[in-house]
């Protein structure tokens, strides 16, 4: 009765379920006894014909009080004891446990596997991101050591009966031995903000051999590693989202442009100046808010722990290469995935605005009315816009198109001329139309 648990996929799941079922049985017993007695008394001793019958003035019974104090006490001791014993079993880390590191971050999980390759070299395999699938071998104890990069999260694998909060600045762990191969959902069970409900991963339990193959298969990463440093950096520049804030053409976004930045002298917020060299760039990637360039806000997230030395070197090489000698190859937006044309103009517009432009429009224009780097899109169409030069105009199709293609032409009052003029090359005529259609609907 009342057995709703997911399948028992870890060695200790059966123990936990056993404990749970004992409590269920005891609870049912007490509830049925008490509610049963209540209903029985209610029927047996109900008032009849609207008149009270004689009732005895019983004020209590010491014997009964003793019994119903002592019996629950004994039951309690029993439950508390086994609860502790089983808990300790579920927390015990066997010698041969496979150790994996996990990082929680709003709103995804990252995993790091450390292993020795054929040459006996220590290697780290990193996977991560939203809905990531992580893999463990069956029948081998797994110790997952976890920490958070921002707020509290909690790592919950129902099928393994394992859960622990993931805390910034403090390590915690779960340990379990999978006994069945298969795929199991992982939830975040500590509220962590907007996408808390989507902070999921899936755990794939495979045979030892398959795990080994999976672990040593580094083709995806090798592809990256095999590139020249600056090519790797170029890929990371978009992959890690640097492009949302740092332009390549000298225009000012949220952060300084990469164009000709290498070798430059930057003056910092605190009045000092600094040479932009390898060290400064590395420092800025790892500890971005220590040395803020004057005129910018300290808003960059740290990439510490997310980028390996090779990757940082790649980015440095890439930034160094932005010396103005090569024409800015504007990244191509709106890759024509299948069915793009089947979407309605509105849907295409929304996709473009939110994701398919580089940098995405929404990295500077909010949809909810808040002011970011640029004016919000909320209710933009038809609004009267005041311009820097003191004039004002009503926002119509023409103005929007112009602003997209030639952002510096008219600057809204109170905003900096910061929008990069890169969309003219990125967007096709139809794309611009779609965007305008979409913007009309943002209310």
């Amino acid at each position, binding site marked *: 009765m009342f057995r709703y*648990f997911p399948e028992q996929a870890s060695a200790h799941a059966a123990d936990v379920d056993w404990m749970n079922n004992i409590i269920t049985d005891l609870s049912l017993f*007490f*509830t049925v006894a008490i509610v049963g007695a209540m209903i029985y008394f209610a029927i047996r001793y109900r008032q009849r014909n609207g008149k009270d019958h004689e009732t005895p003035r019983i004020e209590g019974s010491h014997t009964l009080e003793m019994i119903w104090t002592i019996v629950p006490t004994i039951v309690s001791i029993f439950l508390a004891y086994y609860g502790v014993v089983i*808990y300790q079993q579920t927390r015990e880390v066997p010698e041969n446990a496979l150790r994996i590191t996990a990082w929680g971050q709003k709103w995804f999980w990252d995993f790091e596997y450390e292993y020795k390759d054929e040459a006996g070299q220590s290697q780290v395999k990193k996977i991560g991101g939203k809905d990531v699938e992580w893999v463990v071998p069956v029948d081998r104890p797994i110790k997952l050591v976890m920490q958070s990069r921002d707020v509290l999260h909690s790592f919950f694998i129902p099928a393994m009966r394992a859960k622990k909060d993931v805390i*910034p600045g403090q390590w915690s762990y779960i340990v379990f031995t999978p006994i069945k191969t298969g795929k199991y959902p992982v939830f975040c069970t500590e509220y962590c903000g*907007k996408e808390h*409900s989507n902070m999921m991963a899936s755990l794939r339990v495979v045979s030892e051999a398959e795990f080994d193959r999976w672990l040593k298969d580094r083709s995806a990463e090798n592809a990256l590693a095999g590139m020249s440093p600056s090519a790797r950096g170029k890929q990371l520049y978009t992959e890690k989202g640097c492009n949302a804030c740092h332009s390549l053409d000298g225009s000012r976004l949220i952060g300084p442009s990469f164009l000709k930045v290498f070798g430059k002298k930057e003056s910092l917020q605190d009045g000092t100046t600094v040479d932009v060299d390898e060290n400064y760039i590395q420092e800025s990637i790892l500890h971005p808010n220590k040395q803020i360039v004057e005129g910018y806000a300290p808003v960059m997230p740290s990439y510490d722990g997310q980028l390996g030395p090779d990757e940082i070197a790649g980015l440095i090489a890439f930034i160094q290469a932005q010396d103005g000698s090569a024409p800015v190859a504007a990244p191509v937006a709106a890759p024509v995935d299948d069915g793009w044309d089947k979407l309605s103009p509105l849907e295409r517009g929304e996709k473009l605005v939110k994701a398919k432009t580089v940098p995405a429009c929404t990295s500077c224009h909010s949809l909810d009315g808040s002011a970011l780097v640029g004016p919000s899109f909320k209710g933009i169409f038809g609004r009267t816009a005041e311009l820097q030069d003191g004039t004002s105009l009503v926002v119509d199709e023409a103005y929007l198109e112009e602003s997209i293609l030639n952002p510096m032409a008219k600057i809204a009052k109170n905003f900096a001329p910061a929008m990069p003029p890169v969309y003219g090359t990125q967007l096709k005529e139809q794309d611009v139309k779609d965007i305008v259609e979409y913007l009309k609907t943002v209310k």
Partner: protein
Amino acid sequence: MSAYSAAGEANAKPNYLNHEKGIWSWLTTVDHKRICLLYLFAILIFFFVGGMAALAMRLELAKLYGTGQHNFIDAETYNAMFTIHGAVMIFLFIVPGIPATLGNFLLPLMIGAKDVAFPKLNLFSWYIYMVGACMALFGLLKPIGPAFMEKAMNFIGVHGPVDTGWTFYAPYSIETGTSVVWMTAAAFVLGFSSILTGLNFIVTIHKLRAPGMTWDRLPVFVWGTYATAVIQTLATPVVGITLLLVIMERGFGVGVFNPKLGGDPVLYQHLFWFYSHPVVYIMVLPAFGIVGEIIPVFSRKPIFGYKAVVYASVTIAVVGFLVWAHHMFVAGISEAAAIYFSVVTFGVAVPTAVKVFNWVSTMYRGSIRFNTPMLYAMGFIFLFMVAGTTGVYLAVLAVDVYYHDTYFVVAHFHYTIQGGAVIGLMGGLYYWFPKMSGKMYNETAGKVTWFLVFVGFNLTFIPQFALGMEGMPRRYYDYLPQYQNLHQVSTAGAVINALGYTLALLNLGWAAVFGRVKAPANPWDSLSLEWQTPSPPPHENFEVTPVVTGSTYAYGTPVRGDAAAH
């Protein structure tokens, strides 16, 4: 056979409701009975607000258009909804819920006093409560309207509805951009109101008992209120300072709870639960008291094991201070602490068990009438058994690891708070309604709406136990499709439940305003003091100060050896 020398029958003399007239006379009243009505009015509004937020959540969670997408409200709104729901229901509705309403009304009446010890302070508490309530509303506002309005609202710290959950866990509450400051400040102010109420009650019970009203003659409701008052006075300051520290963290980066500044986020949880575990007994102990009043009267039997019931209340209040970290078993606390807190938690289960057994035994060989209050009391016993025993699952270390922050916990605490405290409050309102209003309500409507509430409630929350067992986490705005059926049943139940509450309260509201049937002084044939004065009571409660000479529960025919005592 009345045990009291003072008893009054209904007469045409002025009563507390009509001895002064006009809104001003209400807003400046220091009469505890009128202050009860002021509170009642306010908390019902917030019950409604919290209930609407609940319905919004349930509507979304039904996922009528399918999971994996937003149906009616988006993620941010949903997160704001459960925060509003939790914070309003806890801080604005159920914590002041029973003590400040029924407690206020009954405490002086039951001990034969003319008022509480500090009547002006009592009114002051209500005003503080209202200030806190307004501040909480600021925490719920979304800055909208023309730009200057938005600017103005941002300027005073209104940045959008709080989205932290009612627990305000750091460091999220320190980082999020919403109006956490208003909400935590509101909770601080509301806490102040709660402290003053508790303090007032403790002094009242110590100093103003009528002649002969000895400690062992106090009605169990008074004992329940006393135990509650102790918790109110001594636990609330801790959450007050904790929330102030959160504000300081946000404003000045003190760093006590912020790991980025060297602090320990788990310390926040310790301090928060040091209050918020005892607070669950603030909610439920007065409800225990209400059940302990209703069952003897409708069974015509003395409460079984008076002393045990009383000791149990006091034990629960005291031991309740020792178990707070059972909310933190997986929060990263040390193993030693987890074991200690798990074991000690059972220390509250045992005295609670004692109370349940005593209530049921009271019915043995009684002459039981099934008026609406009795139905609520019996419903309470069933619901609280489910509530308490599911609390035992959560107290067991090995099992809580699985259940923590799943819907099992959500179901557990709705059974305790709603099945316990709210059902207790409803029962109490039905029971003392004739005294408070001087009118009788429609009994049939009372029973029908009780049934709606009872069925709707179970239909809402039993599926949530199953959801929790399946592993569905709480505070989820969207979920895997496998959970959908149970969620839809739950939503259906919530609608019935809401209908039940609305009709049950309307039944009373209607009777109070339009009711024709006058209530006699003592419609239920009770022996306790509040029924020995007219309905509604006069301004100063009793025409003559009562002198108590016997037990409040001397129902039935004395059995062997007992005759001499009474």
